[in-house]
């Protein structure tokens, strides 16, 4: 009974800080329709700022409260600058580009935080009043957690008053319902958006500052928090504050009780709950279908097979790639092998995002599954490399088909969030399980003797990856590819001519999963090892950046994007420690300059030149 009560209270305390972050995210999404990937970064900044402020203040409760408020306000200020400097310019860009830009912010903030505060975890020296315990049901419960429990509902109440009792709040709610109408009524949308973003950022900062005493300010906070916040917002319903609170409660309690019941499966449990909620209520617990933002109505550009010059260029590249082992040194050859793997990985994601119309944020899951299957085949079954290279895409494809079965009916953002959560859970499982070697990974996954020579292995990678990418391209111009695109362009129309859009999307997911799995397997043999990072969020985002850089609506896009990104990455990592900062700035600059991607921009240039 005591254990139950203590876990309940722990859960409630966790729910509060989770709610603060999720509330900011959901408010921002509701009004601006931007899924703010950098929300976790704002949370992290809140924690770091709070550390800087609180370590300079006298350690008593009043100063503490003031310091936390200061950190929240400072984060809100950063949010305002972010909105004015970046987001304001991309509200009309496609959803995915907004996400990409905010991911650029994540990278920039990572390195800036590292520069300012250093790499170590920063903990707050806890004064006695923070360390105090309160006896509850024969057990001692930290007083600070009790304070947290109260803060969540207090903030919810304050937000509720703000949104229902003030004119500004009414405007925000109206904009959440129908922002075009609000604009048509003469409300200054720019100011409204800026303030809403500031409010959301402030809530994230508050969450980060309040979480500091129980943990530390560290550089991993941003991505771990954003995943949880996404789950909460999706389960609660995008844009719904009470929904976010309910979901935060649900998830936090699940976590605190899950630790008792299934200590290793809390993340899996979270995913199961999320899947169950979305299966019954596709828009979350209290969410409603979003009225589409009218001005950004999607129109899809005509997709043509590559023009003659582009084909010639591709042929030249292919010939160069075939000639490479005879001229290139081992280092260049290994960079090229890596580029080939990245290319197939990006091409597989493109199948989902482009013709499939499904924005997957967890594509690394299939890459990682492929890698682990190859490792299991090599180390567990002691099977030769071809067996691993065959099993990996097969298993990844089957699992992607099964996963696809229950997500293909979800709409855009929900789909993206669910794929993200799924990949994060696999990642967590891989880093915790003994079967996968945990964070130490699986070592010694080497190719067979005949393929040990880097030139031979390069040839194998070339055949599988370039061949795989070409095969995917061929499929996209087959009747299946056309039908898939038809289902994306106009789903009701596609159904009315007898097509089955969910089934087509499932097939596309399986195909993309298999191709990513193959890329993962080649990567495993290439590196000789597999680590949980092969399915980390960073890896998924790599692929996203490659596809979006190249342009979603061109078949050449992922290839171009993979080559540019791998090149950029290899150059950056050799010349600067601050590669995240530079990469983030480059991504932001590219999004601002080419909202259609590099290949998309080139295509338009070609078209303009022709007319």
């Amino acid at each position, binding site marked *: 009974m005591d254990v139950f009560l203590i876990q309940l209270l722990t859960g409630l305390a966790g729910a509060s800080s989770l709610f603060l972050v999720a509330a900011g995210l959901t408010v921002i999404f509701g009004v601006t329709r931007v899924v703010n990937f950098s929300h976790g970064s704002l949370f992290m900044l809140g924690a770091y700022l709070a550390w800087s402020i609180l370590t300079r203040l006298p350690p008593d409760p009043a100063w503490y409260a003031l310091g936390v408020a200061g950190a929240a306000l400072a984060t809100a200020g950063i949010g305002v600058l972010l909105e004015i400097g970046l987001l304001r310019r991309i509200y009309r860009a496609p959803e995915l580009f907004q996400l990409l830009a905010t991911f650029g912010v994540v990278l920039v903030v990572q390195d800036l935080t590292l520069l300012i505060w250093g790499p170590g975890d920063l903990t707050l020296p806890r004064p006695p009043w923070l360390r105090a315990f309160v006896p509850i049901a024969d057990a001692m419960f930290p007083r600070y957690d009790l304070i947290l429990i109260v803060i969540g509902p207090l903030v919810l109440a304050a937000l509720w008053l703000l949104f229902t009792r003030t004119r500004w709040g009414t405007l925000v709610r109206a904009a959440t319902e129908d922002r075009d109408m609000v604009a048509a009524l003469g409300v200054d949308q720019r100011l409204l958006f800026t303030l809403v973003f500031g409010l959301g950022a402030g809530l994230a900062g508050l969450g980060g500052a309040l979480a500091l005493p129980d943990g530390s300010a560290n550089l991993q906070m941003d991505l771990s928090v954003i995943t949880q916040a996404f789950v909460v917002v999706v389960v609660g319903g995008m844009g719904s504050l009470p929904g976010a609170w309910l979901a935060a409660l649900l998830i936090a309690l699940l976590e605190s009780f899950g630790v008792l019941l299934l200590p290793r499966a809390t993340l899996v449990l979270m995913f199961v709950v999320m899947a169950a909620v979305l299966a019954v209520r596709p828009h979350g617990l209290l969410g409603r279908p979003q009225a589409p933002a009218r001005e950004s109505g999607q129109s899809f*550009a005509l*997709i043509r097979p590559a023009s003659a010059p582009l084909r010639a260029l591709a042929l030249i590249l292919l010939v160069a790639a075939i000639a490479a082992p005879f001229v290139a040194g081992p280092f260049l050859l290994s960079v090229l092998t890596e580029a080939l793997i990245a290319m197939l990985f990006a091409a597989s994601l493109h199948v989902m995002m482009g013709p499939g119309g499904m924005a997957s944020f967890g594509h690394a899951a299939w890459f990682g599954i492929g890698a682990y299957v190859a490792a299991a085949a090599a180390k567990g079954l002691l099977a030769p490399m071809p067996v691993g290279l065959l099993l990996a895409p097969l298993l990844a494809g089957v699992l992607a088909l099964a996963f696809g079965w229950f997500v293909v009916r979800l709409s855009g953002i929900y789909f993206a969030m669910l794929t993200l959560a799924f990949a994060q859970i696999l990642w967590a499982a891989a880093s915790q399980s003994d079967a996968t070697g945990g964070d130490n990974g699986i070592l010694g996954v080497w190719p067979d003797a005949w393929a040990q020579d880097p030139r031979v292995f390069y040839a194998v990678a070339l055949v599988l990856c370039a061949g795989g990418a070409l095969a995917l391209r061929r*499929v996209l111009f087959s009747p299946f590819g056309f039908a898939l695109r038809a289902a994306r362009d*106009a789903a009701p*129309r596609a159904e009315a*001519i007898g097509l089955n859009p969910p089934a087509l999307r499932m097939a596309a997911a399986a195909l993309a999963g298999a191709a990513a799995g193959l890329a993962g397997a080649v990567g495993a043999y290439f590196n000789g090892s597999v680590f949980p990072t092969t399915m980390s969020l960073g890896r998924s985002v790599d692929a996203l950046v490659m596809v979006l850089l190249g342009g979603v609506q061109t078949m050449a896009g992922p290839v171009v994007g993979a080559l540019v990104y791998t090149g950029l990455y290899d150059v950056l990592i050799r010349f600067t420690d601050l590669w995240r900062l530079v990469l983030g700035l480059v991504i932001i600059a590219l999004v601002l300059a080419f909202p259609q991607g590099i290949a998309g921009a080139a295509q338009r240039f070609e078209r303009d030149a022709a007319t």
Partner: protein
Amino acid sequence: MTVLEAVGLGKAFGGVLALDGVSFSVEAGEMLAMIGPNGAGKSTCFNLLGGQLSPDAGRVRLAGRDITGLAPRRLARLGVARTFQITAVFASMTVRENVQVALQAHHHRSLRFWRAAHTSFREAADRLLAQVDMLAAADRAAGVLAYGDLKRVELALALATNPTLLLMDEPTAGMAAAERGALMALVRKLADASGLAVLFTEHDMDVVFGVADRVLVLNRGTLIAAGAPDAIRADARVREVYLGATGATQRC
């Protein structure tokens, strides 16, 4: 021969009856117009027949077979084709490719992963495009067509599934007057030549009385009149719905 038979169709949205006990039938080769003021239930009725919604009451039969509540793709396989009020074609493809996709779907070829799509059913697609007078635009992007041309392409898509029943929701909305007549004359020709049954909703009374064999009048979810155009024109209740109780001017 009766192609479509609707019996006692009813549908409510959150307690509001959008459609209440509507029964009618469409014969092969017949063009049946469904008219009524805004909110009369025309689009609801269409979405019940097309499988986009399923009815709360009543049955729908296609050539005697019960098709109530079947999904749109099942209906397409059974010979029900439709065009939408807000025209939807596949914007990322050419006009010809649009029709090819429909033909591939109709012939169960959509799960072929390896053959090149642009060579399959090419001639058949061109024949359909010629039928709707859009062959000259076959290689243009469907996403950039003028509205009237889009309607024609959509018609070709519908015809690609070799339907026995064609449902057209506001087929001429947004078109110029001359274009309207031409499109409906084309549909008339198809109905006469192939025995295609056509049910359409329409706001333009010139179009309705120009091509329809019979007219159904809906008001507030119920059928208030059905009959030949001349009879409908003279019907007192129809005049009341359209012109108000005291309306006496000569219109419609």
